[in-house]
Structures are given as structure tokens and as C-alpha cells.
């Protein structure tokens, strides 16, 4: 049962929007990979292809004035919160038009004016920051919510523990979203973690509620996030959401990911969040050609972003010596 594009149900329209966001992220990630292979992206990148549903599903449950803190694997979170693929790619390509003026790079994508308060490359470091942003919201008497996205590996570092305890004791409006992609860098998380579900199984240690969910189904993610965000916004305190998912590429650009069993990779690729969403769309009666139209639009948008980023001027060397202090400068002595 399919319907023309202009007669979609509300649920279908909403899901189509999320699908489009995921497709934009996927397209941008692929572009980033290609640009790296073409020698146009320096340093390192950690692609989130395969994990788009977590970013898009959670973002769908957030308000524009909520806060998000992410990791070095944060392209999807930046884009889901409104960073343009062009600005992201320009950042990766060291262009003056980069999201962070080419001073941050792939690991530090930030869009503060959209409440996306940064990507942090020291594992676990941003969890206390998200707690602080949530604390700030309560101090200022707003009902904003803060979200920290982090990996399974981050659950074994001290900052995780301190952050969850403080958030629980102060009953703050923060949601801890673990993207459990089964691996830290090259080591299976199960081999270095005392509990099978590294985030969800630890929530009771802070008397926090937890949900263990399918992180590849954007609808499941959105619904769980909505529950957690609602709890936070209405004074119910923090929630731990552990979303099981998988990265399509290796840990970072130099990693072919050979440590992962082929069977495991195959299974997870079959559960690609885009495929899962397409499946849902078709069950909601969205015709294939509507989805194809979206795919086409996304492809164009990404292509345009790549061209624009390529055409942008290189980073301005003078920028190396600005932005240390709030006055814009970097002077440390007279």
C-alpha cells in the first residue's frame, strides 16, 4: 500500500525527514572518506556511517535550545543539530570556511549556536560538561535538557562514573546516550568490561533508569530519547540510554577494521539504519519513488557541499594566533 508524496501520514512525513537527515549524514561521511583518499583531508577522521540513527533519533526528541556534547566521532551529531555538510567538509579540508575555522578539525566539530557545544577527543571528558550544562539550565531556571553522546569504551573511564553520580545526586536534566558499537578502537568492548551492557548495566550504580535499545532503528531511538528527554525536562532526572549500533568503517581513517568477524559485519550491514528506515517507510506506505527523490536531493546537496568546500579558500594563517582569549587574541605576557 503506497501513497503519493503529498498524501503521506504525519508519521510517514516525520520519518521521511529523519531518513533524509540520515542520508545527508551518510552522504557526507562517504564524501569525507573519498576526500581523504584523494588526499584532501589531513589528520584523522572517525566516521559515524552506520550510527546515523542514534544522532537523528535523539535530535528529533530535542528542542532547538537543548544542549548536545559529542565525541571525536561526531560528524553525525553536528549535522543532526544543523551544521551544514559544507561547513563540516570545509573544516576537514582545512578551509577558512570550516565550521571551526579549520582550527578544530574532524574531532572537534562544534555548532554552538545550535546548542551543539562541541566534540571532544579525550574519551569521557565531555560527560561532566553535559552535566554542567544541565546544572546551568536548572540554575537559570530554564527547562533545557543536555545530552551527552559517548561510546561503549567511554564507560570504563573515571569521568563517566563521576558524571553519572553527580547528575543523579543533583537530579539534573541530562540524558546519557551510549552508542555501543561493540568496539573501542580495535578491541571488543566485551573483553575489557565487567558487564555485558557497559552503560545500561551500570545505571543502577547511580540509581538511574536505563533503556537498552536498537540503535539502528531511528524510530526506536526517537521514542526512547523522547521518554528520557521528557523525564529530564519535567524534573525526573537523568536517564541512561544504551543504543546498540555498528560502524560501517574502521575506527579511524587508517583502520581497515579487520579485527571484526566477517559474519558480524555482514549482519550489521544488513541492519543499516537507512535500510531499516526505508523498510519502515515502505510499511508506512511511502512509495519508492518518493524515497528515491529524497536520495537524489541528498546526493545533490552533498555534491554541492563538496564542490563548495573544495572551492573555499584555505585557512587563514593569521587565525593560528587568535581565539585563545575571549578578547579574540592570544597575548599571554607584556
Amino acid at each position: 500500500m503506497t501513497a503519493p508524496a503529498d498524501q503521506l501520514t504525519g508519521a510517514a512525513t516525520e520519518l521521511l525527514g529523519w531518513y533524509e537527515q540520515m542520508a545527508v549524514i551518510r552522504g557526507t561521511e562517504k564524501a569525507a572518506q573519498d576526500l581523504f583518499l584523494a588526499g584532501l583531508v589531513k589528520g584523522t577522521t572517525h566516521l559515524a556511517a552506520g550510527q546515523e540513527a542514534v544522532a537523528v533519533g535523539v535530535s528529533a526528541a530535542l528542542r532547538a535550545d537543548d544542549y548536545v556534547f559529542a565525541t571525536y566521532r561526531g560528524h553525525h551529531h553536528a549535522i543532526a543539530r544543523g551544521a551544514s555538510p559544507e561547513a563540516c567538509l570545509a573544516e576537514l579540508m582545512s578551509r577558512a570556511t570550516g565550521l571551526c575555522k579549520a582550527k578544530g578539525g574532524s574531532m572537534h566539530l562544534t555548532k554552538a549556536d545550535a546548542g551543539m557545544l562541541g566534540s571532544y577527543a579525550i574519551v569521557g571528558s565531555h560527560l561532566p560538561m553535559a552535566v554542567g550544562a544541565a546544572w546551568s539550565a536548572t540554575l537559570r531556571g530554564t527547562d533545557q535538557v543536555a545530552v551527552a553522546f559517548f561510546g561503549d569504551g567511554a564507560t570504563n573511564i573515571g569521568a563517566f562514573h563521576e558524571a553519572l553520580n553527580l547528575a543523579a545526586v543533583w537530579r539534573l536534566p541530562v540524558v546519557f546516550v551510549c552508542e555501543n558499537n561493540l568496539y573501542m578502537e580495535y578491541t571488543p568492548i566485551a573483553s575489557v568490561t565487567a558487564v555485558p551492557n557497559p552503560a545500561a548495566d551500570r545505571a543502577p550504580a547511580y540509581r538511574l533508569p536505563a533503556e537498552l535499545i536498537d540503535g539502528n532503528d531511528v524510530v526506536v531511538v526517537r521514542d526512547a530519547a523522547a521518554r528520557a528527554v521528557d523525564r529530564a525536562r519535567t524534573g525526573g532526572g537523568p536517564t541512561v540510554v544504551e543504543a546498540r549500533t555498528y560502524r560501517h568503517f574502521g575506527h579511524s581513517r587508517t583502520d581497515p577494521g579487520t579485527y571484526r568477524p566477517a559474519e558480524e559485519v555482514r549482519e550489521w550491514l544488513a541492519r543499516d539504519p537507512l535500510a531499516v528506515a526505508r523498510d519502515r517507510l515502505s510499511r508506512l506506505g511511502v512509495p519508492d519513488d518518493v524515497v528515491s527523490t529524497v536520495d537524489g536531493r541528498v546526493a545533490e546537496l552533498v555534491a554541492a557541499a563538496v564542490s563548495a568546500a573544495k572551492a573555499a579558500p584555505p585557512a587563514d594563517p593569521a587565525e593560528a594566533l587568535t581565539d585563545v582569549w575571549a578578547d579574540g587574541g592570544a597575548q599571554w605576557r607584556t
Partner: protein
Amino acid sequence: MADVTATGGTITYREAVAEGIAREMRRDPTVVCLGEDIGAAEGVFKTTVGLFKEFGPRRVWDTPISEQAIVGAAMGAAMTGIRPVAEIMFSDFLACCWDYLANEIPKVRYMTGGQVTVPLVVRTANGGGLGFGAQHSQAVENWALAVPGLKVVAPSTPADVIGLMAASIRSDDPVVFFEHKGLFASKGPAAPEGHVVPLGAAAVVRPGADVTLVALASTVPVALRAAETVAAEGIDAEVVDLRCLVPLDMHTVLDSVGRTSRLVIVEENPYQGGWGATVASIVADEGFESLDAPVRRVAAACVPLPFADSLEQVVLPTADKVAAEVRRLAAY
């Protein structure tokens, strides 16, 4: 401290800490304190006396023993409209949250291309001389100096505590504020309302013509005592209180050395990697032509701080050690 108008009363350095914070909390409702035992207990050093009573639990927050959460939460709050004043009980414990001080707070503005600011203060009880042993006695302003993006403040007098606290809390940049344990009981003129000492302005606390002594926090009184001692012998030492390591007022130091041609730096941290090395290296470069004698640093010996006070005196800079170096330079 020409800019300090005494109100007639005196105040201890310890009281000045709480007073300095309270003034800013009255002025600005976004100033909020957090730390271990700072609320009803009023701080283990009694440096937050009165705050909980005056401002209540919505402005003064007791935390678990979680230094990373304290400073990390302060960072998140600072990025979103609050001006947190976080206490790390002893400066040695900065090591427990060093990632935030070294990698997060000072870098986030830069690495986001200026998208965020982090107006926070991390206050901490610093320094030795009280028999607290190796893990509760260090002077670690030099750790903070090694990190671009932190302002580093270390007052030596009660009035400066108040004036620099005001400037630190009002600063849109992150500040590490070192309160010296050995100075808590010391007294000085109270500071008038509205007293602000700008960050990065050293003070010539004793003018002199023969030798420049550069000091910070606890070493200011040490240098002053040494200056008195050698004055009796006809050596006229100038004492510069740096007040801040960042911004570093080299203008005042180079100007002084330009007049005296001799420099002794008095640091509480160990010699290796001490802050005085940076000052010395700048003078050995930009002030080279003024120098008529070697640059000397009186710093702590390169060992952990021992417990026994007699041993502590062997390790730490003392007025006698400083006076001896001043004499050597004057005779050079």
C-alpha cells in the same frame, strides 16, 4: 598596592577569599560556587565562611569527591551562561582533574574557532610549609603556566585576594586562582567596596636600586624579609610581586632589571620546570643587555615535599637562602 585604599580595618587572607567571592555573588546572580565541603561546613580552610548562609544551596553546592565532575561541570556551566567558582580543595588534587585544566577548558574556545567562552574560576589551596606532606603541599602554579589558555593568579595579600578575585570572576577567560595555605592567617588592610585588581599587573612592593627580586604569593613575604635583611647591609633590593603568571607582566620585570641589572627569582615550586625559569629565560633574552650578573633562581629543591618541618625548611626557599643569593649577586 598603591591602588588599595584601606578602609581602616584589617582582614585575614582567609577571610578575604570568602569576602572576595561574596562581593561578586552579590553583584552577579550567575556566580555560583561548587566544591567539596564548601556549603554548611564552610570549607575545610574556612575560605567559604558565610557564603552558604547568605546565598543558600542554590548558589553554593556541596559536591561528592569527584574532581573531574566538579571542574567538568563548571566548564559545561560556564559555556551556558553561568560563572562557576569551583573549589579544588588542595592544589595537588588538580592532578585528579588535569585533563580539564590542560586539555578541555583552555582549548575549547580555540578549537571551536571562538564559538564558546569559558568564564570560570578554579580556586585552590596551594603551597607548603605546614607539614602536610608530599601530597598536600605543592606549589603548582607552574603546572598551570605550562598550559596556554589559562589565566593564572596567585595573590600575596588580603586586598589582592579580593581585588584579583573580582577580576578573575569577571574575566570571560578561565582562571586558576591559587590561594596560599601559608598565607591564610596573614593580615592586611581590607579592600574598599568595588576593589578590582586587573589581571596581569605586577606590583613593585618594595622599590630598590641594586637587585630585583621577583616573587609570587608565599615568596613575596620571603623576598621582603630577605630585602630587609640585606638592607641592613647596604643592599637595596626591589621586590616585584608578579600577582599573576598569565598574563605575565614582563614589562614591570624588565623595567626593574633595566634599573638594577641584577635578578633573583624566588619560587616555591621545584627548580626543574619552575615558573621562574620562564621569567629567567625572557630576561636572559630580552633583558640580556641590562644584566650585570648571572640570573639566579631560589626555588624548592628537586624533591617531593617532606613532612617534618625541619626538612621542609631544607627544601623550600627561605629568606636566608634568598639573602645569600642577593649578597652573591650584589658582590658580583
